């Protein structure tokens, strides 16, 4: 269970997150929705250790994550897919994937983990030794998700995985996340602007606006609350 308590983050005096609390259970998908600038990315970056909160805590199981470095948080079983995927274009597909497994120092498992990702995303297998630069947008997102899985996380943090992708690719990515969650018992925090596709796979949903929580419901319920949608998401 990941617990976020009263988390506040500001950038140069401007509050991006203002006392947000949330719980992510050990299984299932929690979606965080909200318009641009609502603080969604800041929330996910603070959990991953990329930004230091001004106040509040993040804890995982019994361990306090606040103040830990990103490389230490990965070792706790939390992997993040940054916005846009964050693939390293200068490295090959294979190198991108292997990199995420290095800290485990387990060569036998490395091969297994690589095979699993290739089986999950067959287009990557064909391009395995090409520079990541040569991938299409959809393949890059597959690489980004596959790479996050290489470190065998228990909790996957996804920052806008549908951004800039064709609807067909978005539904493929969403379906894969749903399957992963079901098959591997993963827990997922999904930050999305694309509320419709996020709610289609999420169990729980949180609506953020201007750095504050405005609603926290079962995803199915939030999907039907049209006033909230109109008020905060603008459609």
């Amino acid at each position, binding site marked *: 269970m990941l617990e976020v308590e009263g988390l506040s983050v500001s950038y140069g005096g401007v509050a991006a997150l203002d006392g947000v609390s949330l719980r992510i259970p050990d299984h299932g998908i929690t979606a965080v929705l909200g318009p641009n600038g609502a603080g969604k990315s800041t929330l996910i970056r603070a959990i*991953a250790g*990329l930004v230091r909160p001004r106040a509040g805590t993040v804890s995982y199981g019994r361990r306090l994550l606040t103040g830990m*470095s*990103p*490389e230490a948080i*990965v*070792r706790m079983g939390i*992997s*993040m897919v*940054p916005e846009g995927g*964050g*693939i*390293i*274009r*200068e*490295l090959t597909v294979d*190198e991108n994937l*292997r*990199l*995420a497994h*290095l*800290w485990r120092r387990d060569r036998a498992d490395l091969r297994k983990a690589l095979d699993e990702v290739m089986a999950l995303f067959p287009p990557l297998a064909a391009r395995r030794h090409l520079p990541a630069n040569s991938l299409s947008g959809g393949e890059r997102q597959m690489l980004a998700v596959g*790479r996050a899985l290489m*470190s065998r996380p228990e909790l996957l943090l996804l920052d806008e995985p549908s951004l800039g992708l064709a609807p067909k690719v978005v539904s493929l990515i969403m379906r894969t996340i749903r399957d992963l969650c079901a098959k591997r018992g993963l827990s997922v925090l999904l930050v999305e602007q694309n509320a419709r596709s996020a709610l289609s796979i999420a169990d729980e949903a949180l609506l953020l606006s201007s750095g504050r929580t405005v609603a926290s419901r079962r995803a199915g319920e939030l999907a039907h609350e049209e006033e909230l949608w109109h008020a905060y998401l603008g459609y």
Partner: protein
Amino acid sequence: MNYFFVLTLTGVAAGMIYAALALALVLVWRATRVVNFAQGAMAMTTTYIALAVIQLTGNYWFGFIVALAAGLLLGAVAERGVVRWVENGPPLNAVILTLGLLLILEAVVPMIWGAQIRSFPAPFSIAAMQVGAAFIPVSPFNLFTVGVVLLVMVALLVLFRFTGLGLSMRAAAFAPEIARLLGVRVGRLLTFGWGLATMAGALAGMLVAPTLLLYPNNMDAILVYGFTAAVLGGLDSPIGALVGGLSMGLALSFIGGYLGPDLETAGALAILIAILMLRPQGLFVHAAERRV
């Protein structure tokens, strides 16, 4: 002996030394995007340490090893103790700090060891070899220089291409934040990168000293040549450092041999200006590969 041939051989031998220092600059640039103007002074310092150890023990190789180890340590300390503090500031701050480090080292070393010019031993003869009745303008020490720099290049190539540590170092250089998200301990790798670089610099220092002698600013000109070589190679590429170093060695040897030795430094600066005007990205970095 054909004069051109002589100049070519001496150019290659000198070029290998420039390549070693260029390599040091490239490794630092790759790790932290800083041009380390103290690289030459750091190499000078480790060479003084080598000399002290050699005089104490009477064994060249003991001094050689200690100098490389001192380079590793000095580089690591410079990164952790100095450069790390301005990591998030404007890039110019770090560059100016390295200039400060240069001044400090060139002031502290003569306080400890004196400022007089010293000779430095070579593990092999620095006299030209004789084959039958003819002298070829290559000394056993020149062959050692070429061999050891090539060895270091191959070792680094293996490190970067075929090991997990090398993969982590490349990732840390290309995308530090992403690398950290993937569990790479970027901070440690930057320290190690500086250590490795300063080790390559220490090697250059010991290869320079037997022929050019040792004094507190004996590496200043070599730094200019090595920097030009590194820029020629694209600043990002170890192979580029090697080719850049060799090109510089040959160019300066021809300039010195045909136009007069006084023009060598001016020639190096002319080459640097020409590269920066015509091909600022260097010869070995494709524009498309660079980060935007």
